[in-house]
């Protein structure tokens, strides 16, 4: 599903973000990516959805060779990857329904399909009754649920989540985690970067720890392993 072989990433300013990473993430896995800030977690994830290209090494996602991907094929690879951010990244002028439908419109899904699929997904994230609200009228947790709905609406096989609970209080965070677990249970691979010790230690999953651009630990049902 996702496979990296000796992947290096050096930015143009000379920063060595990743130094020879090799890893394999199978279909339907749930992976926590942990490690100090600036260790390379974000770069790791950006490489998966082809925001960045590796300086050296090979990455394959769903069978596509990401490093050698032709420019015009990038959109089609991304349609199979849902991305969730700490800051939600919703469009403020669109309401909840429109924000989710937007992701389907831009991949040119038929109107009929959009009208059927969006309520389904809103139901799944528990926002069916808030479809007409603007993002500004929602709590942080609810906004993240909208972002998750948008990420999964096109039924991607992988979800990349960059600290999805980073801006949320503990209780709300648990709600989001349960939602992600549910999505994972339904068959979507999830790669999630996090600094939340409690979550990692309670909802046990595979843990990959990155430090200074290297994988220093990779355990099934692992622990968070840091003190902050």
């Amino acid at each position, binding site marked *: 599903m996702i496979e990296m072989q000796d992947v290096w990433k050096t930015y143009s300013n000379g920063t060595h973000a990743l130094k020879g990473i090799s890893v394999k993430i199978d279909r339907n896995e749930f992976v926590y990516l942990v490690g100090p800030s600036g260790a390379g977690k974000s770069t790791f994830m950006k490489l998966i*959805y082809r*925001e960045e290209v590796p300086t050296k090494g090979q990455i394959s996602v769903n069978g596509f060779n990401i490093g050698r991907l032709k*420019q*015009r094929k990038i*959109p*089609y*690879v*991304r*349609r*199979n990857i*849902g*991305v969730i951010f700490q800051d939600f*990244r919703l*469009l403020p002028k669109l309401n909840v329904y429109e924000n989710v439908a*937007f*992701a389907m*419109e*831009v*991949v*040119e899904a*038929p*109107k009929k399909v959009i009208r059927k699929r969006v309520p389904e997904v809103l139901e799944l994230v528990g926002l069916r009754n808030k479809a007409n609200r603007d993002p500004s009228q929602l709590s942080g947790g609810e906004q993240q649920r909208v972002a998750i709905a*948008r990420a999964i609406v*096109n039924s991607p096989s992988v979800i990349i989540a960059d600290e999805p609970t980073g801006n949320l209080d503990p209780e709300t965070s648990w709600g989001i985690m349960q939602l992600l677990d549910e999505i994972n249970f339904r068959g979507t691979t999830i790669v999630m970067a996090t600094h939340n010790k409690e979550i990692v230690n309670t909802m046990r999953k595979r843990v990959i720890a990155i430090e200074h651009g290297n994988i220093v630990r990779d355990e099934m049902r692992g622990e968070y392993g840091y003190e902050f």
Partner: protein
Amino acid sequence: MSFSTLLRQFREGAKSVFRNGWMSVASITSIIVSLLVLGVFIMLVININSFADDADSQVQISVYLESKVDDALRDKVMAEIQTMPEVSEVTLIPKNEGLKEFKDKLGVEGKDLLEGYTEETNPIPDTFKIKLIEPTTAPFVASKISALNDTHPDKPIYKVNYGKGTIEKLFKVTRTVRNIGLIFVAGLALMAMFLISNTIRVTILARRREIGIMKLVGATNAFIRWPFFIEGALIGLIGSVVTVAVLFFGYQELEQVVAADMTLAFQLVPMKQVALKVGGLLLGLGLLIGIWGSTMSIRKFLKV
């Protein structure tokens, strides 16, 4: 692309034109200015060209006889001119016909001016209109005809006219006008393009977030480009439609003024004859400038 997608793209593009308010107005104005200048120059060149063509086909020598010349002498002189090898055709315009022609030329408004003149008091002499085989021989033939005066004791020829240098001057003017016009228009078009690309850049900056999300969920570049493309095309279209309307309205007014003014010896090329070509050209050019401007500004943005 499905119909509903196409509709969406048009809606987004049209929305931006309004959302950018004054920037759009500035772009549209710059298109109007450049196309209007171009349009005026085109009209000018068309008219000068048609005038020159007219003059060219009319290259001929007019020979005015003295009014006292009788018919016998007139026919004799005419025959002499006809035998000249350079001459292809000599037409006699008798006094009366000349008067009538002049009256026609002056039209309704000038009717009063010639009211008093009858066939007896006709001030217009007999005239020969001479067509040449080769227009460039005009000066030579004219002097040859003038020389005929010396072979007749009555000196029957009053005046010999040929359009000396007029045609050359006209062509020179046309060329200069066209060149100056081209430089002007190129500069103005460039300015319009620059303004449009700036307007669209503002749209892009305002919608960076949206574009980022579009890319993230897998929109193709073509899909992202469409609204901007339409925005540029709309700006170009609005600008050129206004230009064509203004230009044609102005030209029509001018046409009437020229037609009414009898001191002018020429008529403007009728608008019907040029409307389609000039209108089409301006519309096409407006669209092109608009689309080009928008394409220039998005190209950089889509490389991520």
